[in-house]
């Protein structure tokens, strides 16, 4: 199991992801600096959360023009798995590897608290298969721009294809996302972007261990 964690200037969840994956997979992930252009093959590339380039202009916009992006796109076109969490999700939408856009929370506040997300019935994907649809995972969110937007036509497509990976509970949508979306998959199910932080519910001192379940399942699915 070879995992790469991409580090941009301003990434700040890189170490958290590293610890989570290392503890679950017992393998040491590799940090990749955003200026690298020639990267080896990995089973999974993770784009961690943070404030890449200070989130100036738009979240993820400046990062999505970094040299590493071309390698990430090549990896994607080979069907490689990619996980973008929080700012990583924003970068994936800015690079168009995932549909939609993350705009400012409708409450106009940064929000950090635990929340339940519900695993959806999706197309085949290493990120969700292995979970019974409607399984609830309790994980923290921490973002200012997590309000997922797609237009109606694209939304219908996402629903039809089974690309919606996670939803917030109906009355607990923290940010105004359409359809309470918390995470979406690419058309081939190999790329996931999600706002919640599963790497913050992995260890016994965390409020929940559901993030551990998420990574465990992902690693099993990728290895099988």
């Amino acid at each position, binding site marked *: 199991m070879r995992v790469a964690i991409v580090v941009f200037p301003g990434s700040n969840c890189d170490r958290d992801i590293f610890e989570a994956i290392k503890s679950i997979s017992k393998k040491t992930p590799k940090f990749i600096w955003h200026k690298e252009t020639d990267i080896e093959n990995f089973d999974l590339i993770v784009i961690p959360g943070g404030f890449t380039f200070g989130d100036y202009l738009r979240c993820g916009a400046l990062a999505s023009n970094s040299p590493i992006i071309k390698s990430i796109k090549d990896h994607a076109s080979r069907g490689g798995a990619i996980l973008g969490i929080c700012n990583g999700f924003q970068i994936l939408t800015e690079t168009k590897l995932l549909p939609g856009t993350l705009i400012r929370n409708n409450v106009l506040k940064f929000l950090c608290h635990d929340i339940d997300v519900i695993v959806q019935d999706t197309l085949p994907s290493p990120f969700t298969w292995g979970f019974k649809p409607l399984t609830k995972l309790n994980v923290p969110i921490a973002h200012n721009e997590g309000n997922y937007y797609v237009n109606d036509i694209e939304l219908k497509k996402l629903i039809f294809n089974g690309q919606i990976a996670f939803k917030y509970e109906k009355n607990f949508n923290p940010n105004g996302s359409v359809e309470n979306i918390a995470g979406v998959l690419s058309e081939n199910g190999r790329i996931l972007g999600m706002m919640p932080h599963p790497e913050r519910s992995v260890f016994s001192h*965390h409020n929940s261990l559901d993030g551990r379940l998420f990574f465990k399942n992902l690693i099993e699915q990728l290895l099988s």
Partner: protein
Amino acid sequence: MKKENINSECTLNQAMEMGLTEEEFKLICKKIGKIPNLTEAGICSAMFSEHCSYKSSKKWLKILPVSGDHVIQGPGENAGIIDIGDNQAIVFKIESHNHPSFIDPYQGAATGVGGILRDVFTMGARPIALMNVLRFGETSNAMTNHLLSGVVKGIGGYGNCIGIPTIGGETNFNQSYNSNILVNAMAIGLVNKNKIFYSAASGVGNPVIYVGAKTGRDGIHGATMASAEFSNDTESQKPTVQVGDPFTGKLLLEACLELMKTDLILSIQDMGAAGLTSSSVEMASKGNVGIEIDLDEIPLREKNMSSYEIMLSESQERMLMILKKGAEEDAKQIFKKWDLDFAVIGKIITDKKIILKKENKTVCNLPLNFLVNESPELNREYEIKTSNINLDNKDIIVKKSIKTILYKIIGNENFASKKWIYEQYDSSVMGDTISIGNKSDASIVKIHNSDKGKFQGKAVAISTDCNSKYILNNPIEGGKITVAEAARNLVVSGGKPLAITNNLNFGNPEKKEIMGQIVGSIKGIKEACEQLNTPVVSGNVSLYNETNGKSILPTPVIGMVGVIDDIEKIIFMNAKINETLFIVGQDENKYNGFLQSSLYQEIFCDDFSGQVPHVNLKKEKNLHDFIIKLNNNKIINSAHDISDGGLLPCIIEMLLSNKLGININLPSRIKNPNKENLLFLHGWLFGEDQSRIIISTNNPDKLIEFSKSENIDICCIGKTNNTGVVEIPKYDSICINKCLELYNNTIPNLFS
């Protein structure tokens, strides 16, 4: 700017506009043997300012206890350091950004956070947590909402972006802060004991390095720039608000920590207040050497900055370092990788002077010892005033039902949950956060990777505190209580208190009663720190928090740090069902609860004058040791200290999250309602006597046994149940859901 102006001799008038007094100016002229030019005078004025020289408080800060077996670094460096074993140490400090936050709440608070973080990582530590203590005016004041939302956004704006969790603090409201809000930010970092960096420069000939963001005209001393002689182009020189850039802050943090892994750095210091001036002067004078800087090498954001402006700019995200000779190239590569400016700007010299060159001319030549050691130390007149009012409980209590009183207290903005605030901070980044908000009385982060096999690891516990009412009514006793309460907060969370940092926020020290508040509270803090063995390792003083002659409430804030040697010993606040609650600790209030200076008095009498509760520090320490012993024997299931609001509100806080109920076992003498007993009941339920803790246990017998052998007073309150009703037999019954609603909705209703 006209060059001849900046090099011309400074007049008395100009010196006074820079904030120097006539005597100070004369002293300067005498000591340096010449009349300083404008740049030199600017540097002297900055070094002699209250902010840099602590001239009003220095004399009194010296009485604080600053050493102990576990103290690695006391006050005097960028931050204090304490030993936590396993070759690791905790670096921490608190700092105020009060005035800037009133002018621009967002930027003021953000740069406050950025500044305190640099103080911590400049010593080689990776910051692991942030705390903040906030004071605002009345909630009904139109400005309060604007200031509060701006400050909270600013704190989050910096902390969230740089990726350090903000895990706790305090927010209080009082009209005395209407025009002088307080924003005190505290940072806590972790360092390996053998990788600590200090600021004393060393090694003649070694290069002086500037790294980080470029220098602009930010925050240059306002009074000075108003002087028309400085330039014809006055508009562009108006003092400006400092703008923080957490992104550059993050890059600087990572670049510095990366460079610190090598052995290329000899000393390092961040550029904080008075920028390049205080950092260069302090580094050189601490190292007993001189420093020479070529101002043409400083990375500038704007063209044509004068030597005066460059030296006094407070642009953010900058550091000054002394490297080993020949290390420049390797160090530069690291900063280049992080896209940061790196410039060799000068060298260390033998002569103990600060020499500045610009365009090949010497623009400043000042003796260092004079700037640092002979900066004024004032012996201001003071009068420690304690309240001469002594009220009886019957003068305070109101004819209202217990329920009505309780709901008022829980729904009071100074008691209600601050969740609306702290949910705007990223509290879980870095993955080590264990307790925030009301999970326990202290905020807790795990020491990263401290677990091994079955051992779950160690943690740091932090608490911030200040009860201004007590300080106002009795500065010495109030000072003691503030420290005692901070320590109690750590102990009831399973921690061992180790040391404190403090932020002394007061009004104008030229008034003797304000100076008395300062002196008195320092005396109280000193005594408590000695008794509780928690030395002061760092701190900050913010004076002149006054508008139109009206001062803020005295606000000496304590930030206490402790260690939890096994995270399985952490105690949370929430009781579970079928646990027995006990009051543990000196229980004078069994007979006459102390209602003077209380939240009860503040809310219902619109006043809080009177005496303050007494704290017996010996008993306090015994109580802590007792709690630690109970905890080691696994007798405590949850615990909470009894502070603001007294017993009943504190019981409610323990029951809230599981929505429990309880049948309160009243002291026998007040079991039957009558007029006199009502008086005692109010005192018992809402009095704020010190040194008391509520614990819940499944093992009452063991607890009673221990308390007897240790001679500690305990009192059984009753057993938790699932009714969601708190029953005060024959008097009243209280609905926990109603409490929860008031507790959670008060702040959002005020500020959303």
